[in-house]
């Protein structure tokens, strides 16, 4: 009887989350005749263009997550521990909340207006310093350009998530370390870094999954010229460019596997990091 109370939720989740995903997962292991096969999965590794798109996606997600986490951590430490006025902290936190949700099509526009061929920074570099950055081989429409764009939501997301962890570093630990004669460097190396390490790695993984599934920013930014997995899948859904629907399912399955593995690690690091944050 009391199951009735949660029945709508589970029915909704089943119909619109679990079954559609399962449909693709099962399809990834079938051929056009509906027989079970591993050919599609093998094809993900054998087809050079698919393999390459996974590689580019992983590279972009990895670097945007790692750099986003490092810069985000530096900013978070600066506003929490740097002795800055308190308005700096509240302004940064508010802005991070906004910027971490400012992704997708408009974000791409903003960076095209900044570092595109006619962007403000490009033109200022040319007029003020005589630097024609596009003449020097710079191009924003590359994977590194996309990483710079992704950092615009990755860094704020890191700040939002890691600031509570830095707040969790107790003042007493610093005092205890100082009493025992530790230098600042020893305090960081033996107390701060080991305590923050699991939350740091956990957030890196979250940022990785965040970038890996994103498509709107990249699509508005480069059209379909940059071959990352979500854009390939988008093209496949639009017009079966792989000429094999089941290979399309395998492409989607590969994405779930990668974000799934990432989340298993995330949960593991979260459990470890919560030990210190009570």
């Amino acid at each position, binding site marked *: 009887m*009391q199951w009735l*109370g*949660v029945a*709508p*939720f589970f029915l*909704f*989740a089943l119909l*619109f*989350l*679990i*079954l*559609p*995903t399962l*449909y*693709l997962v099962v399809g990834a292991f079938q051929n056009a005749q509906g027989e079970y096969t591993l050919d599609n999965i093998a094809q993900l590794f054998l087809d050079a263009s698919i393999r390459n798109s996974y590689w580019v996606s992983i590279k972009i997600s990895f670097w945007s997550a790692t750099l986003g986490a490092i*810069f985000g951590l*530096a900013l978070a*430490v*600066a*506003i929490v*521990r*740097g*002795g*800055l006025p308190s308005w*700096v902290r509240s302004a*940064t936190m*508010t802005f991070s*909340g*906004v910027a971490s*949700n*400012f992704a*997708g*099509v*408009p974000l*791409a*526009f*903003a*960076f*095209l*207006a*900044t570092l595109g061929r*006619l*962007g*403000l*920074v490009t033109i200022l570099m040319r007029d003020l310093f005589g630097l024609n950055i596009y003449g020097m081989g710079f191009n924003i429409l590359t994977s590194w350009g996309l990483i710079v764009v992704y*950092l*615009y939501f990755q*860094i*704020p997301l890191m700040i939002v998530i890691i600031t509570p962890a830095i707040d969790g570093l107790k003042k007493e630990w610093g005092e205890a370390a100082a009493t025992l004669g530790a230098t600042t460097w020893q305090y960081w190396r033996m107390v701060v870094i080991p305590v923050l390490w699991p939350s740091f790695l956990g957030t890196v993984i979250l940022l990785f*999954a965040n970038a890996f*599934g994103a*498509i*709107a920013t990249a*699509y*508005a930014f480069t059209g379909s010229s940059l071959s990352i997995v979500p854009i390939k899948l*988008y093209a496949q*859904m639009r017009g079966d460019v792989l000429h094999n629907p089941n290979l399309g399912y395998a492409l989607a399955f590969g994405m*779930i596997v990668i*974000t799934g593995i990432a*989340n298993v690690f995330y949960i593991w690091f979260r459990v470890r990091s919560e030990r210190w944050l009570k």
Partner: protein
Amino acid sequence: MRSGRFWAWVTFVLGACYFFIPLIATFEFSLRMKRGEYSFEAYKVVFGDPRFQATFTYSAVVAVLTIILGVLIVVPTAYWIRLRMPQLRPVVEFVTLLPLIIPAIVIVFGYIRMYGSSSPLPFLATARGTDALLVIGYATLALPYMYRAVDTGLRTIDVRTLTEAAQILGAGWTTIVARIILPNVLISVLSGAFLTFAIVIGEFTLASLLNRPAFGPYMQLIGANRAYEPAALAIIAFIITWGCMSVIQVLARFAPKSANQPN
């Protein structure tokens, strides 16, 4: 300590540069539409475009429907889990986190394959049905944020006592959820609602792949064909996101801070 503060300022200023230069550049770019002078011409063109008005209205309506659907699913479930079935909490929490694991493009891929015109649930056979599927898809994407917001709100009220008091006074389940529980977690629900609105209003992937006339695909189309209007749209989108987040911050001030329940 003094050198520490110096480096903190350096870090902060560098970060501020990275975050503000694109905003300034985009704003400056959006003013350049008329040759040789700054003007709000691009904004005038955007706001005057009937497709802007139509797609923005469409997305706003979809966002509101998404929020209603999300509340209808999440509030009774989170309430029931707290009241009667705490043993199910890990399962429900895991399910609500799935949309963060399964990318949106994969979920919509599944929809397109499962709900075509020849399936038992032919959502995609009609335009209205596809609109409904879009709302459902957004409610799925919003599930993690909605559930967490509502569950946090429920933590601050004494669900059991409120329920028993209402039952003694003769209230049925619908009355309890709609007139006792919902008003008590309204602030949390509204936070989740504004976050949902910020996510849905410019969303591109689902709307584009379901071929709906939403604001996200419209922005993408303008971006591919125009020069100055995209910058104006980026500024408009940033202001909308900013507005939603500010409302959430203001709401947080009204939210009760700690649990007042005995257990």
